């Protein structure tokens, strides 16, 4: 796919040139670091439990996942359509899919970097003489990255559908909330088919049930890949639809 990597590189450079990426990284790392210490204290020194909390067991993780990807992706298409740069990209010899995938990859790489701070905690703990469960840590990280990919795809999708970054961020956050809270709401229903349907979109359960336990189950990878591909596809179509407006 020509231009994919060029656009990813450009997006990452654009992210780190601006203050937003650094601010998000700073807040996330500070919060996660402080919380990790807190988790260690409350778990009575159980390192693996604390790491699990950091990468998915706590509500802070999901709050970050709901908020950070939309903030990252909100500008990627909507602002470019307003400044006209999208016109430049869509008349460059790269396909629309490459443009969207390039931006998507950049968002995922950034979020992967953000979650990889968990490895720092692992290193810090192991330097103190307690070996963490590296497999579970890597699995939790991969799960976090896959969740981020899904939410980035949702964010890009929202960004492709509007010309205002704030609207894009808001729309994506709402959609993310629906994704995350659907199982909670389904729990209120006693209809089994509702629960079964919602279980198909239960991101939290898919993350906790496999990756966080250190199990790499392809069906769980496929769950994330399918939903992510769906939203990327919708985003590509939304970019194409801009031409017809």
């Amino acid at each position: 796919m020509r231009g994919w990597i060029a656009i990813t590189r450009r997006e990452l450079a654009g992210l780190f040139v601006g203050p937003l990426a650094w601010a998000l990284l700073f807040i996330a790392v500070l919060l996660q670091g402080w919380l990790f210490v807190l988790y260690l204290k409350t778990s009575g020194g159980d390192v693996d439990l604390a790491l699990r909390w950091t990468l998915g067991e706590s509500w802070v993780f999901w709050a970050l996942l709901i908020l950070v990807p939309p903030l990252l992706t909100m500008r990627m298409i909507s602002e470019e359509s307003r400044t006209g740069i999208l016109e430049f990209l869509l008349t460059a010899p790269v396909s629309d899919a490459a443009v969207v995938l390039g931006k998507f990859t950049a968002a995922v790489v950034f979020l992967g970097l953000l979650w990889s701070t968990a490895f720092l905690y692992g290193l810090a703990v192991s330097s103190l003489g307690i070996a963490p469960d590296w497999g579970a840590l890597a699995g939790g990280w991969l799960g976090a990255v896959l969740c981020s990919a899904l939410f980035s795809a949702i964010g890009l999708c929202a960004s492709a559908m509007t010309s205002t970054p704030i609207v894009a961020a808001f729309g994506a956050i709402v959609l993310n909330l629906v994704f995350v809270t659907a199982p909670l709401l389904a729990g209120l229903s006693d209809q089994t088919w509702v629960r079964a349907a919602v279980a198909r979109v239960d991101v939290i359960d898919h993350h906790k049930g496999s990756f966080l336990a250190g199990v790499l189950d392809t069906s769980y990878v496929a769950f994330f890949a399918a939903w992510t591909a769906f939203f990327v596809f919708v985003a590509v179509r939304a970019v194409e639809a801009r031409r017809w407006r």
Partner: protein
Amino acid sequence: MISVSHLTRTFGSLRALDDVSFEVAKGEVVGFLGPNGAGKTTAMRILTGYLPASSGTVRVAGFDVLRESLEVRRRIGYLPESVPLYREHRVVEMLEFQARLHAIPRRERASRIDEALEQVGLTDRRRDLVGNLSRGLRQRAGLAVALLPRPEVLILDEPTSGLDPMQRLEVRGLIQALRDRHTVLLSSHILPEIEAVCPRVVIVHKGRIAADGTPAELVAKLAGASHIRLEAVVGADPAVALRMLRSIRGVRDVVDHGRLGIHHQFDLACDEDLREDVGAIAASRGWALRELSWRRPTLEQIFARIATGASDEVEKPARAPAPAGDPASVPIALGGLPPASAATAHASSAPASTASAPATRVVYNLNPFDRGATRSLSVPKVVEDPNAPPPSTADTGPNAGGAPRP
């Protein structure tokens, strides 16, 4: 190189382009001219593959823009009006990005970027942030980005909009330098620009091609005749002069615009420059000339006619309402004027002060330095106001010396 046939594009109920067809040969420089909203940008966006056409076919370099879009995009350098560049990047980074998008081999990149920067004269600003560049420099950076892949076709949408006159000249020079290497299609609503740069002009109006040809052709085809303006003292009987002027070979018609002070004004409709013949008659008859000029309708007038749909703007440019500062346009008569026109003559000379002054009789002032001013006989002539501007205003101000003062 570019072949457009029966191109139509609608936005909802609006027909932005309506059955547009034209061809651009390799190496041609074509200017798209039209008022804002005529469909220029839409046409260019379709050519670059950014917008799909509602119907019709567009081929660039032999490729269909819809079906072989990537092939077309590889061959087109497009600079949209908004000059889309990432503000947070340096000029050279922007060029590197473009080089990667166009898959320019890594070892060629540096030299190609240098070449593009050299072409637009930005070599010393390569490390500047795009967001910090002035409008003109940003335009040039955008041009460098468009030129980097060495496109066969260069499409420039309003390349000089928002620039000051100096920057405009620079960009114009740049485009002229590009003529040898690329087929250029540019749009503008500024006529002198198009005339200066493009040997061929396509006038677009309301989504249709209103005219297509060289500026000279368009002038000849659309405007009909040019004319000669003669202002001279032709003696007591202008009918004699009129007859003589009509007898000149090549003159199709002579319009007598009447007296302007002691001079008489004629417009001779003719296709070629007959000033020599008119001058010869004037010399033989001893007419004192004030003006003898050949007036061709400009592209601007043709454009205005197409754009507004008004037909007489080009046919009779002389009768267009003259600015107040032109003394020749103020009708003057010995003995008496119709009150209304006398009032306008006054109003144009000293607006506030004479609005209420009685203007019954107007006399021509024979003082040659008064430039044919009018003065009411009922008002005594006033000597120069000591506070008045220096005498040089007699050249610029209307009727400076003879203006009646209450």
